[in-house]
């Protein structure tokens, strides 16, 4: 066997395909399945809640600009994962506050991405 063929075989072994974790497959599938309705409803509900606090008045505007169901779903997905990873104990109210904070954080990041792409 020539050296280069042998090297290509090694390369094939070194770069073997990687199976995704099972929970990733489930998560993406669920998100995609729920994408349109879920994202729009929840984003709207977060916007209304946040308007009660003047400190948040600028943020819903950012969420609206981001728009689009995939953008909203991405916000949801990341925020939920972040909350899960953090795994902090607390009251339901604290959890809601944290989730809201995560959503706004992600919304701002997405908005920045969008604006950068448009520039």
């Amino acid at each position, binding site marked *: 066997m020539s050296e*280069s063929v042998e*090297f*290509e075989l*090694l*390369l*094939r*072994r*070194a*770069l*073997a*395909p*990687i*199976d*995704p*974790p099972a929970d*990733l*497959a489930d*998560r*993406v*599938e669920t*998100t*995609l399945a729920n*994408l349109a309705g879920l994202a729009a409803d929840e984003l709207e509900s977060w916007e209304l809640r946040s308007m009660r606090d003047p400190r948040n008045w600028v943020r819903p505007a950012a969420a609206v600009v981001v728009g*689009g169901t*995939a953008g909203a*779903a*991405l916000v949801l*997905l*990341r925020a939920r994962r972040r909350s899960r990873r953090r795994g902090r104990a607390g009251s339901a109210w604290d959890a809601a506050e944290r989730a809201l904070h995560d959503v706004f954080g992600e919304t701002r990041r997405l908005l920045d*991405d969008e604006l950068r792409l448009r520039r």
Partner: protein
Amino acid sequence: MTSSPPARPKAELDQEFSQLYRSHLRDVYSYSYYRVGNHHDAEDLTEQTFLQAYRHFERAQRESEGRPLRPWLIRIAHNLAANYYRDRSRRPQTAIDDATVLSAPHDTEAVVEGRDELQRIIEGIHDLPDDRREALIMRFALGMDNREIARALGRSDGATKVLLHRATRQLEQIVREREEAT
């Protein structure tokens, strides 16, 4: 005057997207993993790739004119990975999670030596210029042919063939030099 084609039923599109997703989840994940070097970021990149793909699926289908959509998916992952490095000012981690190469039990010295060689290859891949590394990942991890790689990278078939050849030769040299150094 040209009129745009009629919109297709959403349920039909969703079903086709779901099929695309199931067929290529492993490809996108493998590509992401070899680009970023760890499972955590590879998961994020994979998720974002499919969400982006979902947004633009109908147009991609229309423009692909029946050609496979894998190169388009990988191109999305490629662009997202580029943003990932630009945003966070970081490069791929040189030490890919050891799980890939080192997961098999090592009973004999020969197996251990073989594993060292694979490890050197993995490390060498990260010393390659971006386009060469990409081309090798697409070829060897995903089994893409020249034409698919050309579409994913936005190059001609001829330029892709040359790119792959040079990438393999350069990597071979890097690995040889590492071997000699140890």
